């Protein structure tokens, strides 16, 4: 959901009837409005908030805000929504000595999920919604986007994602599940206790021998166990990737929901984190949320700048030596190539592997000549094509070899 002043005001008016005298009903109503705006709030948090309300001087607006925020919000990304709602919700209350803080909504920081301004961006928003809505249309419409695609042999497995209907999506889902498990199962340094294994575990051996009166009969060993790798997915959703966006969404959604440690980002000219948006049970919900939030879908491409944002704001905490970074893009870059190169180098240094999936790679006459792709090539561990189900299966195999 796109959070604007209007939606906030609407949420406030919806709960107006629930408000009453005293702190408890008001905080409950506030919590309900927060939930309406998509922030996760639990009853116990609300109860704690109202129970603690008399611990601060409610007339001190800043303290009261802090009290509610510490109790109800549990991730930094929800701060902007909270602040807007707080200002809107508690304004009408009779705070005689409370100075209203200016509602600087239009100038909200350019953080990935910061709510974007209202009206003037309506045009772009519509475009984005349309772009995503298009994905649900019969795919004949998309044939116009004849960016290099695979020559049409009518085998389903060979069919390009750009022209794929709904039935095929199951095949895709299966292939993704396969890939997900490949990525997810790597050998860990941590030892698991078992009967076989290279190392003897004295502590467990002693413990187990107690059933024989302390005589050591069975030896316990330690062996390595499966470790989970984290995946960061960076997905190009600019105009040149349009015909693949149906597949992209499915890929992102599938991977996110099959693996536990996946972070998902989309980029065109700027970067947005959508992990929290696609973490739902239902792909349609996910689509709704994305279309409401992401601007610049189908826009131009600036890979360098997007990666820069990623490296600056997210990579330090999200990318470790256990992380596989997967970039899906055609490499058509309109930005600064030297920046792209530098940022690739940075990612390379942090990450375990970088995989670049390029849908164009499938077409016979494609060579990675465009400057962006050229700059990125030296830093890649894998450069593969994704354009149909077959390619996904072979991607799965390659991954298996790579992590073995």
């Amino acid at each position: 959901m796109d959070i604007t002043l209007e939606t906030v005001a609407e949420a406030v008016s919806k709960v107006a009837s629930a408000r009453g005298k005293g702190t408890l009903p008001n905080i409950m109503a506030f919590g309900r409005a927060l939930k309406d705006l998509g922030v996760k709030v639990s009853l116990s948090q609300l109860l704690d908030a109202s129970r603690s309300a008399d611990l601060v001087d409610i007339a001190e607006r800043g303290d009261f805000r802090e009290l509610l925020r510490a109790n109800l919000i549990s991730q930094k990304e929800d701060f902007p929504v909270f602040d807007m709602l707080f200002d809107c919700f508690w304004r009408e209350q009779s705070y005689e000595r409370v100075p209203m803080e200016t509602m600087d909504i239009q100038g909200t920081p350019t953080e990935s999920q910061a709510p974007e301004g209202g009206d003037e961006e309506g045009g772009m928003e519509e475009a984005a919604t349309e772009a995503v809505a298009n994905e649900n249309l019969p795919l004949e419409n998309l044939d116009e986007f004849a960016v290099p695609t695979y020559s049409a042999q009518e085998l389903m497995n060979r069919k390009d994602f750009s022209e794929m209907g709904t039935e095929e999506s199951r095949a895709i889902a299966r292939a993704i599940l396969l890939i997900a498990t490949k990525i997810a199962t790597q050998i860990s340094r941590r030892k698991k206790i078992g009967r076989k294994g290279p190392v003897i575990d004295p502590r467990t051996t002693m413990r187990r021998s107690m059933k024989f009166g302390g005589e050591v009969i069975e030896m316990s060993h330690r062996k390595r166990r499966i470790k989970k790798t984290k995946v960061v997915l960076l997905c190009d959703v600019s105009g040149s990737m349009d015909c693949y966006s149906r597949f992209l969404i499915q890929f992102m959604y599938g991977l996110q929901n099959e693996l536990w440690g996946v972070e998902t980002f989309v980029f065109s000219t700027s970067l947005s984190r959508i992990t929290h948006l696609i973490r739902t049970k239902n792909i349609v919900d996910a689509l709704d949320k994305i279309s409401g939030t992401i601007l610049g879908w189908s826009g131009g491409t600036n890979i360098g700048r997007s990666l820069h944002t990623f490296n600056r704001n997210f990579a330090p905490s999200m990318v470790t030596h256990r992380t596989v970074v997967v970039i899906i893009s055609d490499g058509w870059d309109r930005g600064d190539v030297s920046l792209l190169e530098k940022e690739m180098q940075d990612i390379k240094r942090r990450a375990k592997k970088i995989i670049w999936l390029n849908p164009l790679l499938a077409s016979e006459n494609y060579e990675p000549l465009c400057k962006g792709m050229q700059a990125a090539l030296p830093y890649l561990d894998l450069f593969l094509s994704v354009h149909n189900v077959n390619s996904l299966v072979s991607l799965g195999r390659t991954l298996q070899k790579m992590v073995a």
Partner: protein
Amino acid sequence: MDPKQLTIEQVQEILLKEKYVCDRSLATVVYLSLVMGKPLLLEGEAGVGKTEIAKVLSKVLGARLIRLQCYEGLDASTALYEWNYPKQMLHIKLEEIERGDKKQVETEIFTQDYLVKRPLLDAIQSEDAIPPVLLIDEIDRADMEFEAFLLEILSDFQITIPELGTVTAKHRPYVFLTSNRTREIHDALKRRCLYHWIEYPTFEKEYEIITTKFPEVETKMAQQICAFMQKVREMNFYKRPGVAETLDWATALIALNRKQLDDKSVIETMGCVLKYREDLSHLREQVENRQFSLEALLRTSPELVS
């Protein structure tokens, strides 16, 4: 001093006494956590003082600090409790020789004497007059599975040991969790905590931190250091330095008897702030090409209200 009787201002004050500069919003959250007895989850970039606040607080409250450093592979036996198997075995062997009573031995070896207390049990069982401060550091480094162990402890302040029963805290410890956000913490755990995000300090706050920690520092140099750090955090470095680096640097400059910064001393001491070779050479280039002028920095930095 009873922590439950404090006010927000007093929290700020006692922390300042131990040279921890904290703004009102952080003080409010710490105050709430103390009074409500609810754990506080602190997030923020590396080196902004997340761990420090728990340490300082335990000091000013006169409470014991129990610290659990999380790491990948941390499990219940290293965090909660473990039976002292070797001791149990020895006991059994001894009883064997003396042909002791079997039933009695069985009950004896599962008593407190044979229990190895790990930090979490230690914090819950503490008999101290002032409840201890429990610091669960870098929770994001531990596995997801480990968070589940924490749930019982953080909501009910009790630990269930199958052989002994449930151990409940006499006094609730003051719990602080820190996270660097290498992964998301599970909602169930977050729900049980108050939450606060610590930002990089503003110019004014950083200046206050330096002058509090080092009263002897020259005003001009303190300003220069802060302006420099603000700028460095805006620039494109691989690793952005935190307050910890600022303090390291200030210590180094004071030890070298510098009264103010110049290009040369910046380059000489930059190892305190930037810890990667590429970052260092990037900065050196900038300084040598005059793109990074200290004079200009100071001119544009905000005026201090003193």
